[in-house]
């Protein structure tokens, strides 16, 4: 394998592994802001118990998110030096803002949130929790903006030619608010919330099955399922808006997502299928006109197919197609879990539905898988470009590295990451088995009186 392929595999692997954690931090961050806020408002110690329990899991996901995030940052330079030179001027300001505004906020106040219970006032502690959550969200903002610029570049000019060509910012705000930024950021953040929410759902379901921590579980489950229902509906609108954006700005990607080879009236959407890239056809259950409807709100208007795209600009079709469809299936599973769960909870029969609780317990995986395949759709669908229509992936790689180096680092990182995942799951498991701290052990929760 050549350096380009190896580097792509390495970047994909480190990204996917990294992306297990930040969504959990972002989602749990939101959850903590709610529970600690409820505690300060109602003084019901159950909310404090929840906050203290989820804070520990937050700390775990945060540490892993930071550690694996560093690999991402350096990964741009180590394996994609030419790409870094090309986008540095554009990426720079977004990345700078990320470091200054997001990471310091998050890391600075994390210490207070974790260890400051008795050192600061309750209000100040809550303020720290909010800062950590806001910081986590900010960090998503800047990196998604930078990635969106790679999908739909705007507000720049090209300086120099050949090896020395660089993208240079001409309009900062046009670069930040490039056509896909807002859509993609919304989509990503909602996905992150779902990751956090379904972790709570899953652990609560586990306690329900074990008939443990009854009061704690009831209230966690209620908050989480309500949030899940709202977010899942919002995600539908966000998805619709994103897809329209892709149709307009990256038609090749949309064509790959649905395997549309021919531009024709009543473009179909495939419910389940398989793309044969050799014969350029899709086998499966199709609904004619549905894709046309989603893109242009009428069943007839054709959607651009791959026949209008030069062949050397085709993304790998089947993998993009499958990733995109799996994402939708995951959404469907989450909808079943959230709405049915809320219905049973309202009927007060949830704790008796053994099978359904098992389903909820595994639901933690649905948003995670959706996030992974969602990014695969976005990034593989962008191929063969690393920056849409400006720089090919093959031209972005570091010129001076050799396959041996990348194989070495790939093996090293894969081993470490696998070990980390095992350790993370082991610790998460022991945290869950240990359960929330009982009330008596928590007094005094804060410095002074609340």
């Amino acid at each position: 394998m050549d350096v380009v392929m190896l580097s792509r595999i390495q970047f994909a692997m480190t990204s996917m592994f990294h992306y297990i954690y930040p969504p959990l931090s972002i989602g749990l961050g939101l959850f903590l802001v709610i529970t600690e806020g409820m505690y300060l408002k109602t003084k019901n110690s159950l909310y404090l118990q929840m906050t203290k329990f989820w804070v520990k899991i937050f700390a775990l996901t945060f540490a892993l998110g930071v550690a694996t995030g560093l690999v991402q940052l350096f990964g741009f330079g180590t394996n994609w030096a030419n790409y870094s030179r090309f986008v540095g001027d554009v990426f720079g300001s977004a990345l700078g803002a990320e470091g200054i505004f997001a990471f310091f906020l998050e890391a600075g106040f994390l210490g207070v949130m974790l260890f400051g219970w008795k050192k600061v006032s309750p209000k100040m502690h809550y303020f720290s929790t909010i800062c950590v959550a806001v910081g986590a969200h900010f960090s998503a903002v800047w990196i998604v903006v930078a990635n969106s610029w790679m999908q739909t570049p705007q507000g720049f000019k090209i300086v120099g030619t050949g090896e020395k060509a660089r993208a240079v910012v001409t309009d900062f705000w046009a670069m930040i608010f490039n056509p896909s930024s807002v859509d993609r950021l919304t989509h990503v953040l909602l996905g992150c919330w779902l990751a956090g929410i379904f972790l709570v759902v899953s652990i609560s379901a586990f306690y329900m099955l074990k008939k443990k921590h009854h009061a704690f579980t009831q209230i966690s489950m209620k908050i989480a399922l309500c949030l899940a229902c709202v977010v899942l509906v919002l995600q539908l609108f966000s998805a619709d808006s994103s897809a329209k954006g892709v149709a307009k700005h990256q038609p090749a990607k949309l064509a790959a997502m649905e395997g549309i080879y021919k531009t024709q009236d009543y473009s179909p959407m495939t419910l389940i299928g398989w793309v044969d890239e050799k014969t350029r056809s899709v086998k499966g259950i199709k609904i004619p006109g549905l894709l046309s409807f989603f893109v242009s709100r009428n069943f007839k208007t054709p959607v651009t197919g791959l026949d209008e795209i030069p062949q050397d600009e085709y993304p790998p079709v089947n993998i993009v197609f499958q990733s995109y469809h799996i994402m939708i299936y995951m959404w469907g599973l989450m909808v079943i879990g959230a709405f049915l769960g809320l219905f049973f909870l309202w009927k007060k029969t949830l704790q008796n539905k053994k099978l359904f609780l098992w389903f909820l317990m595994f639901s933690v995986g649905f948003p995670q898988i959706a996030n992974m395949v969602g990014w695969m759709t976005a990034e593989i669908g962008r191929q063969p470009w690393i920056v849409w229509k400006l720089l090919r992936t093959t031209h972005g790689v570091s010129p001076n590295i050799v396959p041996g180096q990348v194989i070495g680092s790939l093996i090293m990182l894969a081993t470490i990451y696998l070990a980390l995942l095992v350790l993370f799951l082991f610790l998460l498991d022991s945290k869950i088995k240990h359960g929330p701290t009982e009330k008596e052990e928590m007094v005094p929760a804060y410095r002074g009186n609340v």
Partner: protein
Amino acid sequence: MTLELIWYFVVILAMVCYAMLDGFDLGVGLLHLFAKEDKERRIFLNAIGPVWDGNEVWLVIVSGALFAGFPNVFATFCSTFYIPVMVLLMGLIFRAVSIEFRSKHHSTRWRKCWDVVFALGSFVISFGVGVVLGNLIYGIPLDANNNFTGTFSDFIHPYALLVGVTTVALFAMHGAIFLVMKTEGKLHDKVRSWIPRCIGFFLVMYVAITVGAVMYRPYMIDSMHSYPILYLVPLVALAAIISVPFLMRKKWDGWAFISSCLSIAGLLVLAVVGTFPYMIRSTVQTQTNSLTIYNSASSELTLKVLLIIVAIGVPLVLAYGFYVYRTFRGKVELDATSY
């Protein structure tokens, strides 16, 4: 053309902050295994517990500032030091998780295992950062497109290794002084008894790298010949270094820590004075193939935006940095939420 220069100073300032702040928590890691009991080790970890990840963010800032303001330097740096960067990342990952994981499970073997990982990670990072810095000062072979033309073995030469060991010595001293400030009772006396050895080790290394610099890279003092005022830099650094043992003997620990910070800053500025305006010096065709502040900077607009971000952000960063350090000032006390 002044914008590049200003941004260069921002990068240097971020480097100084990184070295001063992460320096002490890396130092604590270097000394970690010398504390034998579990409780002592927990005190060490909790001394840096609330602040170490904030300190490490400065490393992200340094690399981010390079990527943003000097993308060429970032690209050449990372792809050149491919293996060292990977090893450093490994150190950073293991160190971060060892702090977090150690306390999460009650088992002596589990804890001892993470203790070793923490110490080893701290060593790899300190030594690695030093070796890379040594290579940057020493210079590396680059081609006309600023791509590295050498191999890994080019990085292993006496001067770079010397800088690596010096960094370890410097951080160990810095961390020991920090621990003296954060501990009490028996452990405090124990840590204090390590101080003379730490300082001694560092002073020996300091003399060695000074000789090394003059021997291997005599041009490092050229700029001081041209601008005699720059002689102040080594003098201030030297004064700071020499004052450390005196202040420690007087038990003015806080002042000794500040002096130790100044020593770190002084040494870094000295390296900058010696290499300016080169950011990555090429050992072949130095004039044309090197990356300087001027031939690798981003566009004027990007630099302006960056400076605005820094102008808004840095006061905030300082404000909550100050707040966090103030919240956790004083001696370490262990409680239920501690590591």
